[in-house]
């Protein structure tokens, strides 16, 4: 009467053998090798020039901070599309405090104003149960409006320009000497591959602002805090199953409030990073220019993990830096690099016997290589939006492998769990 089923349950763990940091190192190394090879084969040294990397770092910092803000909020279950608005508030706060009391005050001012935006989002989404995206969009409108008004009211008399703050003193920058100097020499020598790697490394260790260091510290601290402390466990449980968390005595509202306020503060810091960016030295209307959204995308790309977020922010910062510093030809050179990358993926997939994926990767590589050969320049009208295009392409390629916190974006009402 009973047909016996097979007794083994296929419960092979899905993770790979490498620990996650190991994979990060591997990916980073792979990316650097790819860029190096590309730079040498295409004869476009700016792909690995220290100036490109340095610009990339500078442009990645606000994105990283905004993304970190997104990470905090979404790990606690609140989608924060309002990062952009909080960032704008942060730019105003940073400029105002920075103008009066210098760069350290600017950092604090940015964080405080951003946190206020976060508080607003928390009130709307947590206490009132407003749809998270709706509230976020509204906060973006409000943040822009408030910054505009305050700028007209307070900056205009000093700067004589309603859209701009007076000059804010920036931080001094630091270089890891003598390492940076030594790498500089190496980069100058134009040695095959070696100089490219030196260029990349030099970009990372020279001209570093304290804010960049702070960002790295915050990234590491967020990781430790969220994944290795009781506070973090509680916070993440609110993003996974708030009803369960509440049933265990976790004050879900408080955790969410805290997370979203921290999220706002981090976004505000991102704003401060823009105000203190070299050459900028102040508030300017529209200066965030959608970086809050890109930060969110970087976090999604990073699979709601700090390490992944770092990778995402680095990718966007680098592509933005490259397109800013160079021209269509160099961006076109990237096509070559991405084609190489596709072929590496193809080999990996062939090895894993995933024929379709391998085919897709191989064909994509061919198409990109074809474009590289056929076109000799790209219009700057389009290369200016390289980070945005990269965002779309990267998400399209990776979105299905991602896993967001289970209760992310869901409205949670206290006591209404089953």
């Amino acid at each position, binding site marked *: *009467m*009973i*047909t*016996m*089923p*097979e*007794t083994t*349950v*296929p*419960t092979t763990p*899905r993770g790979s053998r490498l620990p996650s940091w190991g994979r990060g190192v591997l990916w980073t190394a792979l990316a650097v090798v790819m860029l190096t090879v590309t730079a040498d084969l295409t004869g476009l040294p700016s792909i690995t020039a220290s100036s490109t990397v340095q610009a990339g770092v500078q442009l990645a910092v606000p994105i990283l901070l905004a993304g970190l803000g997104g990470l905090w909020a979404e790990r606690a279950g609140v989608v924060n599309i309002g990062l952009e608005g909080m960032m704008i508030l942060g730019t105003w706060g940073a400029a105002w405090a920075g103008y009066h009391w210098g760069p350290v005050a600017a950092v604090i001012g940015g964080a405080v104003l951003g946190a206020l935006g976060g508080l607003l989002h928390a009130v709307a989404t947590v206490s009132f149960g407003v749809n998270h995206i709706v509230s976020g969009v509204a906060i973006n409108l409000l943040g822009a409006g408030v910054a505009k008004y305050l700028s007209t009211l307070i900056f205009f008399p000093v700067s004589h320009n309603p859209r701009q703050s007076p000059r804010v003193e920036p931080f001094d920058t630091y270089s890891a000497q003598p390492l940076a100097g030594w790498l500089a020499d190496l980069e100058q020598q134009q040695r095959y591959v070696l100089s490219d790697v030196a260029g990349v490394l030099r970009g990372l260790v020279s001209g570093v602002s304290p804010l960049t260091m702070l960002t790295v510290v915050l990234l590491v601290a967020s990781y430790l805090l969220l994944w*290795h*402390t*009781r506070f973090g*466990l*509680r916070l*993440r*449980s609110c993003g*996974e*199953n708030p*009803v*369960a*968390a*509440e*049933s*265990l*005595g*976790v*004050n879900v509202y408080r955790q969410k409030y805290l997370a979203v306020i921290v999220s706002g503060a981090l976004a505000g810091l991102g704003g401060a990073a823009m105000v203190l960016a070299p050459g900028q030295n102040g508030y300017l209307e529209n200066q965030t220019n959608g970086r809050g959204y890109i930060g969110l995308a970087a976090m999604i790309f990073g699979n709601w993990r700090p390490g992944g977020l770092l990778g995402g922010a680095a990718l966007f910062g680098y592509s933005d830096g490259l397109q800013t510093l160079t021209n269509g030809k160099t961006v076109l050179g990237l096509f070559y690099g991405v084609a190489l990358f596709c072929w590496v993926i193809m080999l990996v997939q062939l090895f894993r016997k995933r024929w379709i994926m391998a085919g897709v990767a191989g064909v994509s590589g061919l198409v990109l290589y074809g474009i590289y050969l056929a076109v000799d320049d790209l219009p700057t009208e389009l290369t200016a939006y390289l980070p945005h295009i990269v965002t779309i392409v990267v998400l399209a390629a990776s979105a*299905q492998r991602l*896993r967001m*916190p*289970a209760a992310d974006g869901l409205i949670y009402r206290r*006591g209404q*769990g*089953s």
Partner: protein
Amino acid sequence: MSSPPVTAGGATEHPAVVLTGITKRFPGVVANSDIALTVRRGEVHALCGENGAGKSTLMKILYGMQQPDEGTIEVDGEQVRFKSPAEAIKAGIGMVHQHFMLADNLTVLENVVLGAESLHGIGRRARARVAELAGRTGLRVDPDVLIEQLGVADRQRVEILKVLYRGAKIIILDEPTAVLVPQEVDELFDTLRGMREQGFTFLFISHKLDEVRAIADSVTVIRRGTTVGTADPKSVTSRQLAEMMVGSELPSPETRDSTVTDRAVLTVAGLRLSAEDGSGRPVLDEIDLAVHAGEVVGIAGVEGNGQTELVEAIMGMRHADSGKVLLVDRDGKINDLTGQGTLKRREAGIGYVPEDRHRHGLLLTQSLWFNRILGFQTRKPTSTGRWLDVEGARADTRRIVERFDVRTPGIEVPAAALSGGNQQKLIVGRELSGEPVLLIASHPTRGVDVGAQALIWEQIKQARAEGLAVLLVSADLDELIGLSDTIKVMLRGRLVADADPATVTPEDLGSAMTGAGVAGGESE
């Protein structure tokens, strides 16, 4: 207090829990009214009552998730007032919810220590403590696996571990057996008995009377939000208990005579479906199935073995990798539904009572007549092709309300305003309105009151008698055995056994559901 608490043991010892005069009102309903309950230390105290009687509300009050409007709670002789679960936990009360309160993406250890990190941290000491508890009670689970990889029985172990970890001495179990097969129930009861010896007190909520009689030391019955009385389960009969619960005999799903014909309405052949996580693991594997006109085919299985996927694959809500689905309509025309969308399948004559009425059955904030259109947006009387027939929908909704005894003040109220039983009656009414040739009913009476349950059973029987083919999925083995003409057992995505409802016992079925009597077989 309608009957005095049974006094046993030392007179000086305070009872573990005493509830007096508990009253709780919600918008529109009084959930609890003047409830009295006394639980002695070291006993398993069952709390019986039908769905909607107010058991869960009462337990949430005891656990601090809700506050009573009136009444007092005493724990170990001291009057307490819990503002949150945290305070109840502190007083030594733990609760295992009917719907597990676990975060799928966290590990067992993380789930256990969550909220109680101050006891032993979240690291090595916590792990040691969990291991120690598991050893003492026999609740063994690997602390480092993610919850999503665990089966139902293991999840329940984690839930119990959770409350033990917090030092709970009084443990509320809210319908713990609802999702278990008989063998797992036995295992659970063994664990409970062992723990009772160690001095734990259990409050056991159930409406399965034989289970109550098997495990409980005393039983309190509540009906319509108030206590009817307390009895000794050893001396009371199931029938007496049932009368205390609903005031009359419980309805029975028993069908009388067979109406099975040899006309196959639904034929499923070689159905295969892979898991959505991309692992390629099959969740449905070579399913062959036929349902004939006038026949109820029951699918038995432990939750998570593919029943949901089978139903959704037949409904076209999931796309099978391979396999055929054929449906024969009243005129004998064969419709090949393979690869068709849900709407086409519904139009071909499938009615669908989903297992989760809130997620799949209703648009909660919309009116009843708007809900009537759902699934029928292309058919009369609610629609004329591209255009809706609002008046037709209203009229037909009134008919359903009348015929299926949906208790509502009108058809303009939002579906959310109805009770679970009335919502379910509306869905069943709607799905039987389209002159279906096949009804797929997933857990059609889960969480509804006795009246609605009886009505739904009666309607299914009646439709079956008129030649309807029914595919029934249920976790309630009595319902399954009572209603079905044929029972098929599902295990790990395959139909592994057939059973004859006339002869099979729940225990036999349970053995088959867990894999040929290997107790706990689905977890290693």
